[in-house]
C-alpha cells in the first residue's frame, strides 16, 4: 500500500478500513485481521495498527471482544452514518473541483441531471 505523505499512518489505515467497510469488503460483525496480520500485510509497525484499531473503536465503528479479536460494528446506524460521511466527503471534493473549473451551483446540478439521463 502506498501511503499519503502528509497524514499520520494510523489515520490512513483508519480510512483504509472504513473504506473496506463501506464497500462491503468487511461486513457488519466480521472479524478484522489481527494487528500482526495487518501489520505484515501493510509493512507497518504493529503499534500503529493498534492505534488505528483503538481510534476506530472509540468512534464506534469496531468493537473488541476479549481474546477474540476486533469486529466490525453491527449497528446499522453507525454504518449508515459512515456511508453518509463518505458520500458528503466525495461530494464536497467534487463541488470544490467543479468550482475551480468555473461552474456555479446551478450549472453543476444541471450537468449532473443531464449526465444521469444519458447514463440511463
Amino acid at each position, binding site marked *: 500500500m502506498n*501511503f499519503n505523505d502528509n*497524514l*499520520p*499512518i494510523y489515520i490512513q489505515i483508519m480510512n483504509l478500513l472504513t473504506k473496506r467497510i463501506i464497500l462491503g469488503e468487511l461486513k457488519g460483525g466480521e472479524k478484522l485481521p489481527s494487528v500482526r496480520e495487518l501489520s505484515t500485510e*501493510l*509493512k507497518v*509497525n*504493529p503499534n*500503529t495498527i493498534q492505534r488505528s484499531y483503538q481510534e476506530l473503536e472509540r468512534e464506534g465503528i469496531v468493537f473488541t471482544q476479549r481474546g477474540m479479536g476486533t469486529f466490525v460494528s453491527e449497528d446499522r446506524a453507525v454504518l449508515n452514518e459512515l456511508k453518509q460521511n463518505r458520500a458528503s466527503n466525495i461530494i464536497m471534493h467534487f463541488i470544490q473541483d467543479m468550482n475551480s473549473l468555473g461552474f456555479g451551483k446551478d450549472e453543476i446540478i444541471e450537468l449532473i441531471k443531464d449526465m444521469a439521463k444519458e447514463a440511463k
Partner: protein
Amino acid sequence: MANIAEIKGLTKLYNRKKALNNVTLDLESGKIYGMLGPNGSGKTSLIKILSGILRESSGEVLIDGHKPGVHTKSVVAYLPDRNFLYKWMSIQDAVNLFKDFYGDFDEYRAYELLDFMKLDRNMKTTELSKGMMEKLNLTLILSRKAKLYILDEPIAGVDPVARDQILNAIINNYDGESTMLITTHLVRDMENIFDDVIFLKDGEVRLIGNAESLRAEKEKSIDEIYKQIFGE
C-alpha cells in the same frame, strides 16, 4: 516505560574528528527506533559502541543497567552491515554457534525463519549471494530473544523480494517488549515500521520524536523530513 539503553554525553573522536558529539539519548523498551542520517553522521559509531565493539572517547552508555561488556553482549543482538560469519561455516554451523553462545537463542525459530527465507541449512556461507547473506544474518539475530536488537542497514543492497521478506521477518518477530534500533538509507521503504525516529547529523542528534507526531506536525512523511534536514 523502562529504558533499555541510556546514553549520556557520548563523544567519539577519531584523531581530532568528532564522529559523535555529546549525544544524549534514551531508548525505551518496546519501541522500534529508526536512526537516520547520511554516511558520516555517526550512526555506525553509535551502533558499534552500543554493541561493545567500539569504545567511547567520553560520556557514558548503560544497556540494561550495565556498561558495554560481556553482560550487554548477551542481551544485545547486533546485525552488522557486513558479512560477519566465519568463512568456514555452513548455515548449520552458524546456527550452532548462536545456540552455543546465546542463551536467548531459539533454534526452532531459526529453522522456521530459514524456511521462510528459503535458505538451505547445508549451504556454505561463502556460497551465498548478498541478499541471502543478509537474510541469514537477520535470521540468526531475530532468532534470539534479545532485549535490544541493533540492525545496521538491514535492507541495503537486496532485491525487492528479499526486502519484503526481511521487513516481514522484522515485523513478525518483533514482540512488543524488546527494543529495536534500525539504521537505513532507504527511509521510504522502512519509515512505516518505526515508532520513533532519530535524525543524526554531524555526530549530533538533530531531531528526535514519535514518527506519527512528526508526520502530523510537519504534514510530511519521514522521508520528506529527512530530505529537508539533510538536503540543506
